């Protein structure tokens, strides 16, 4: 299926063409925007992959999107642009809500002019969210990063997570104090972390929290880093430190006890993390993704205690849903870096 990025326009004529687009649209449409969402990708199918995704997001979160597909290796320097709008009727009888998308193809040396392209086409006063797809470039350009309000990455797509996290730290040090970081891989874990936390609201589970001795996480192929971040969250919240026991990595609890862990791949897993089982001596806590997909089932069993179960919402697997969840968030992720630090030595292991 071909996905059109819209009407081809001259780069210097984008504002005028956008104005014409709205003048010619019918009265039943209204332009809206809450954020400037810039997507940068060097994937050859970036336009085709991201245009439908932006259309889905526009149904829930109005934006001005700047989709930049770059080919830095191209020999000829070239800049091309297209404009389009994604309109959705949210309520019968109301106007359609439209979000603008400006698409750029940057080839060769022109790919290095990203800040110039971005800053010329932002919606004034609205925050700038930059979703950098794929590997980050070393030696980040302060001219760009200083103005980004929220940098969005997906660590699951990185070729070398250890090196990429180092670049990410460097970028963060360039940002203004208001800039925030969002790793979609961390966002993916929100509902799962919530479900795990909910189990430990039970007094019988909470009193055993400092006695965790085993963690087993089952994840889908290609989601080891997601599982590691979940493990890192537990470790950082509970004060565990990484150690080795008989040459195998383990965590040490603050009381000196040992927490063993296993990350297992399930080829058939429908979700990035299918389950987590937590051993607490004589008790077990677990969260499993229901086969129906929309919910987790949290469980807790302990001696002399009726088994506890509770269904809790699960994140959807679609990238648009994960991104929407991040776009609706205004807060930062203060637990992200502590979680990464807790599992950093494990990043480079296969």
């Amino acid at each position, binding site marked *: 299926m071909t996905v059109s990025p819209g009407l081809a326009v001259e780069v210097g004529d984008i504002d005028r063409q956008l104005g014409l687009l709205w003048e010619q649209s019918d009265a039943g449409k209204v332009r809206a925007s809450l954020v400037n969402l810039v997507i940068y990708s060097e994937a050859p199918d970036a336009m085709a992959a991201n245009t439908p995704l932006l259309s889905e997001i526009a*149904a829930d*979160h109005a934006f001005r999107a700047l989709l930049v597909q770059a080919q830095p290796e191209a020999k000829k320097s070239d800049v091309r642009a297209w404009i389009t709008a994604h309109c959705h009727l949210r309520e019968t009888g109301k106007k359609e809500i439209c979000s603008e998308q400006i698409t750029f193809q940057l080839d060769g040396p022109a790919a290095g002019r990203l800040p110039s392209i971005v800053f010329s086409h932002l919606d004034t006063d609205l925050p700038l969210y930059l979703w950098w797809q794929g590997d980050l470039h070393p030696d980040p350009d302060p001219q760009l990063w200083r103005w980004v309000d929220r940098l969005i990455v997906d660590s699951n797509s990185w070729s070398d997570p250890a090196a990429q996290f180092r670049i990410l730290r460097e970028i963060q040090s360039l940002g203004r104090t208001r800039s925030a970081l969002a790793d979609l891989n961390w966002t993916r874990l929100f509902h799962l972390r*919530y479900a795990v936390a909910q189990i430990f*609201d039970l007094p019988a589970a909470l009193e055993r929290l400092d006695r965790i001795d085993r963690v087993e996480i089952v994840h889908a192929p290609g989601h080891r880093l997601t599982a590691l971040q979940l493990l890192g969250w537990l470790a950082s919240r509970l004060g565990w430190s990484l150690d080795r026991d008989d040459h195998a990595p383990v965590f040490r609890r603050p009381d000196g006890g040992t927490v063993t862990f296993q990350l297992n791949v399930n080829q058939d897993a429908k979700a990035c993390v299918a389950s987590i089982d937590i051993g607490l001596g004589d008790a077990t806590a677990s969260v499993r993704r229901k086969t129906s997909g929309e*919910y987790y089932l949290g469980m807790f069993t302990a001696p002399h205690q009726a088994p506890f179960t*509770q269904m809790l*919402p699960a994140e959807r697997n679609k990238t648009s849903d994960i991104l929407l969840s991040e776009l609706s968030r205004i807060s930062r992720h203060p637990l992200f870096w502590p979680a990464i630090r807790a599992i950093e030595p494990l990043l480079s292991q296969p």
Partner: protein
Amino acid sequence: MPETASDNPLRYNLVNRPVPDPCIIVIFGATGDLTRRKLIPALYNLAADGNLPSSLAVVCFARREKTSESFREELGEAARKYSRRPLNDELWTRFAANIFYHRSSFDQMEGYTALGNELNAIDQRLGTRGNRLYYLASSPTEFDIILENLSASGLSQAKPGAWSRLIVEKPFGTDLPSAHRLNDAVAAAFPERDTFRIDHYLGKETAQNIMVLRFANTVFEALWNRRYVDNVQITASEPLGVESRAGYYENSGALRDMVQNHLLQLLCLTAMEPPIDLGADAVRNEKVKVMQALRPLTGAAVAENVVRAQYTEGFINGHEVPGYRHEPGVAPESMVETYVALRLHIDNWRWAGVPFFMRVGKRLPKSGTEIAIQFRGTPPVLFNRESKLQDPNVLVIRIQPDEGISFRMAAKMPGAMLQLEPVKMDFHYGTSFGKATPEAYERLLLDAMSGDATLFARRDEVEHAWTFIDHIRQAWQDDSAPRLDFYPAGSWGPRQADELLAPDHAVWRRL
């Protein structure tokens, strides 16, 4: 050793609100419409969003002969119909498994003793930790006996380390003496800090947004006073007639049904000073100060400042509708008001001299609740030299439907002529935030479970409101009181309501 959800280190930074404790909700009068249409769908949606505590049970206390199984089925059908999100069968089954029907008459002490035993057994089985949230959803005439029996049976007493709270549905009395009696009955059973009086208007997102608009934005609060505001108009209009509520409405009327609670609450949020923090008492203290500064309307002042009217036959959306006196269940000579318009004054430093106009009515052309802040006009110089017809700036907060905020200002029409036209900057919740707005009851139930009373009315707020309303009602009973006016269904109310604004050179907004 940690014992409560707030001690759970895994909870940190997951949600930006207090986590509700495990508890049992006991609904008195559970076979009524409120449970079916609002409470159970709200609780189900909280479950679907993962916002319920780890353990929650609902005990439905009512007189009719039913079993837990049959009642769950009834509630399932209702939830399927009224829930804002589609029902997930498995989630519903798990949620409904913890709904229990307790059959008893409200006046039988044995029923409360048995209830206590049942609640203790549920605590043991589900880990609800002795926390109780009693919800009075019955007819107000039953409140006294329920409260008396809750107290006599010891159920209103919190167990050690647990809490016991009460939610009261409006109306909180029918006048000041009855409100006093009800509040005394409540106070005999529950301390004020554990009493949650629901006014669902306060659970609406836009009502909550009034404080955000005022106190999280520099620009508005600077203008929010007598120097810049000409008048404030609060409107609640609906095209519906009395529908099936004639029995209630004949004893209530628009003044007691809407003004005493919803509209005075909106007035307080609009006029209050900034609270010292966002805690329940700080916010409610400021609202009470507005009520204290509200100039009482007594005797002749009522005739000058209040218009009451009743709808006659007319047309709504092109359909002929009967007059109020021809509605089923309404007395043919009924003198009950279906429309009230008031001119109010708040005698404090901020608002002295600024009229607050309020109107509420049934069978008006359009449904809408809004607060309009009308600013003073510009001086008669420059663009305003020749004509004073230029529309003043108006900031409108739309509470429902189409929740949002708009601001009207003047702009030059393009062209060689100097002609000014009003233009509107408009913010729609639905346009900017695509995600579905939770129902007011979801927020309010969650707050009550978490012990946050900010969005609930306090005893003194309710009693101040009744004092104000009672003065008007007393004046209406006087022989010299102005007669009841009439307006055709589908109009914007009686002519007398327009005249009410004339001395202030103001006109009602057309919604």
